[in-house]
């Protein structure tokens, strides 16, 4: 039954968006982290989304030919930003290197905030989809009563 597939699909969307919110939170929290060499500096993380084709076993058995009709989303992996790491002259900082420089993270705060807004919007619309389909399924179950 296709209405029940919706829970899988929208659920995969919720999982993907919550992972995106998680990386955004980590990026924002580490926006001001410093390190004593560029290799150790915090780099902004971002999940990579990809569509995943799904076919429920029930539909295959029933011969309903809806190949690839419901398409969930999956997180392929998390990539680190390759933006350059800036250095700052802070000789008083205990993490400063021999020349008195610390290396800051390459998080772009504005980018992180817009990412957060986009993720929360998509999360909300997936929640709406789940609520609506739940109502429809419940009404279908009580059909004829």
């Amino acid at each position, binding site marked *: 039954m*296709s209405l029940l597939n919706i829970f899988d699909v929208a659920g995969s*969307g919720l999982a993907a968006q919550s992972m995106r919110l998680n990386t955004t939170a980590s990026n924002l929290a580490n926006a001001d982290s410093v390190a004593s060499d560029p290799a150790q500096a915090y780099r902004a993380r971002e999940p990579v989304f990809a569509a995943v084709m799904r076919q429920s076993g029930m539909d295959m058995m029933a011969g309903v030919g809806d190949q*690839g*009709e419901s398409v969930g989303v999956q997180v392929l992996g998390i990539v680190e930003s390759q933006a350059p790491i800036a250095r700052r002259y802070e000789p008083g900082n205990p993490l400063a290197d021999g020349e008195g420089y610390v290396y800051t993270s390459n998080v772009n705060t504005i980018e992180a905030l817009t990412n957060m807004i986009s993720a929360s919007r*998509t999360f909300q*619309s997936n929640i709406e989809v789940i609520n*609506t389909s739940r109502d429809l399924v419940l009404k279908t179950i009580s059909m004829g009563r």
Partner: protein
Amino acid sequence: MQTLSNIFGIHESALKLHAQRASVLASNLSNADTPNYKARDLDFAAVLRGEGDKSSMALMQTSSRHLALSGSSTEADLKYRNPFQPSLDGNTVEVPVEQSAFAQTAVRYQASLMFINRRIAGIESAITGN
């Protein structure tokens, strides 16, 4: 005389198709941020017309070894959406469009369900004679 096997008329297949369309739209909404994902939709009128003629336009099987054509809808019924504002990452999902289509499908699904429920109530009262 109307037989009991077809008491719900078009609403039986309409219910199935609305559920299918809701599933396609839910896929679009959950892939709203997936790069290169192309939004799809079911051409509802065309598919329902196909359901209607299925009995008269069925393929003839002149040999017992012919395969039966099964399934209510095929991949061909799923069309790609033309975006109003294409985005840079190749994604063609427009969330407001999908949301309104989803709401429309939900309302139509409930309408079909209501017709079926009323029909059941009517048949029931005919059987009990009250």
